[in-house]
Structures are given as C-alpha cells and as structure tokens.
C-alpha cells in the first residue's frame, strides 16, 4: 500500500483535480450510458405492448 492516510490518497500528490477529474467523469458516463440503454429497452418493450408508434424509426 502506497498511502499513509485517506487525505494523502485523495490529494494524489497534488494531482487530485486531474486524477479524480478523469476517473470521476469516466464513472459518471459509465453509469449514465447503461442507464439510457436500459431505459430505451424498457420503453421499446412498453411501446411494443401498447402498439404505439415511435416517430424516429
């Protein structure tokens, strides 16, 4: 283990903004993208059940 304390870990040797800015945005997008895909599939299933038409296909 590299770090003596959590504070040291979060400061990333002074590069915290860059390191956490990279991993944070990656995490955010990798939660948002699957969420949108799952929502799209549920909506497609719902619309297939109700016989609704979607405008964009």
């Amino acid at each position: 283990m590299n770090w003596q304390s959590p504070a040291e870990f979060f400061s990333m040797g002074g590069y915290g903004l860059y390191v956490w800015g990279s991993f944070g945005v990656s995490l955010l997008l990798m939660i948002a993208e699957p969420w949108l895909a799952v929502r799209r599939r549920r909506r497609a299933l719902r619309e297939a059940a109700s016989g609704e038409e979607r405008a964009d296909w």
Partner: protein
Amino acid sequence: MTSRLRLYTFAAPSRFYSLAGWLVPMFWVLAIGLSAVGLYIGLLVAPSDATQGDSYRIIFIHVPAAWMSMLLYLVMAFWAAIGWAFNARMASIMARAIAPTGAMFTFLALWTGALWGKPTWGTWWVWDARLTSELILLFLYLGYIALVEAIDDPRRADQAGALLALVGAINVPVIYFSVSWWNTLHQGASVSVTSSPKMASIMLTAMLIMSLACWAYAFAVVFTRARAMVLERERHTAWVAELANGGKVVAA
C-alpha cells in the same frame, strides 16, 4: 447444411435478443469485478511514478478508453459492412448499437488526455497528430450517428452509415501510427506487440485489467442497446408482441 444453420442462428434478431439477454448480466459482473481489481492495483498498490508523481495514474483509464475507441470503430465498420454486403439486419443493428459507446470512449480518451496533458505538458490541448486524429474519430462517430438517425428508411440508413463507417476506418491506423509517423508531443506506444512494454509490470497489470473491464462494459452496454433496437425494429412481429404482452399470444 447443419453447420451453416448453426453459424447463422444468432443472426436472427429474435435469437440474438434472448442470447444477449442471457449474456448481459455476466458482462456486468465481469466489468464491475475487473474494474474493482484494476482500480485497487492502479490507485492503491502501484507506486508513484518517478518523474510524473501520481498524475500518471490517469493512464489506467486513459489508455483503455483510447484502445476501446479505436477497436470499437473497427468492429462497428466491420458489422456495418457485413450488414450492407449480405443484407444482414442484425449486423447493421450491431453497428448502430456500437456507435454511442465508441463515441463515449473517444470522448473519455480526449477528456482524460486533457487532464493528463495539463500537469505534464502544461497545456490541455495541442494540435498534434495523435490528438487531432483522435478528435476526428469523435467526429466520425457523431457523424455516423447523425447520418443514420437522419434517414427515415432503416435499411437505407444502414447502408449510408456503412459507407461512412468504412471510409472513416482509414483514420484508425492513422491514429495508431501517428506517434511514429509524425513528431508528436504525445509519447510513443508504451505497449506494443513487437517490443517489451516500457512500463513497470504492476502498472502494466493494472492497465490490462482495466482494459478487460472496459471490454466487458462495452459488451454489456452494446448488447443492451442492440436489444432495444431489435425491439424497436421488430415491433410488428409476432415474437415481440408475445414478449411485450408477457408471453400471451395476441391476435394480429
């Protein structure tokens, strides 16, 4: 003819739908498990870099994202071409389902690159060959998505998209070899098949595990999106109607 039948079995959207539905949870388990291990090694176990300090840890997401951005483009172009050449609907759906994930990884490669460039080069962005060709890759993904969404007839949209995807594929080797063809601020390849890796093995291990995690993530999210697209396109078929109504057969 039986072997041929087996080979094409999952080209039928209905069969793809059930196979992918079975695979997606497994890819999620892999993606989450591998990222946990990769991040543990990369952020907690691996030592600081002698020259870059801890800013180098961005590599554990930057390089996997950049690899995925190029790989997914080639896979997208491949399926688009198959869908066009053999009039295979499922292949075209796969190509379309890959595009947003490819664009997401391309954006991440650029974003994390900017956040790494600032402390190491002193700038967020330079117009060097590697960075510029990666930005072009993002525009190719966005252009592909915009083009296929703009054409109403799905099969015509697939064909137009395939042409764009194939022409744009020339950009991928340009990105890959840009650091050796041109004098770039971006460093050369750290890992290649022809020479031993230019980094410590613990760092390499973390980077490869994170790459596998990104692969698993890409499979999970692309398959989920492809399933949604299958339902949208096959909405008027009996199997989708049956599925949507909880297994009850409805009169057409």
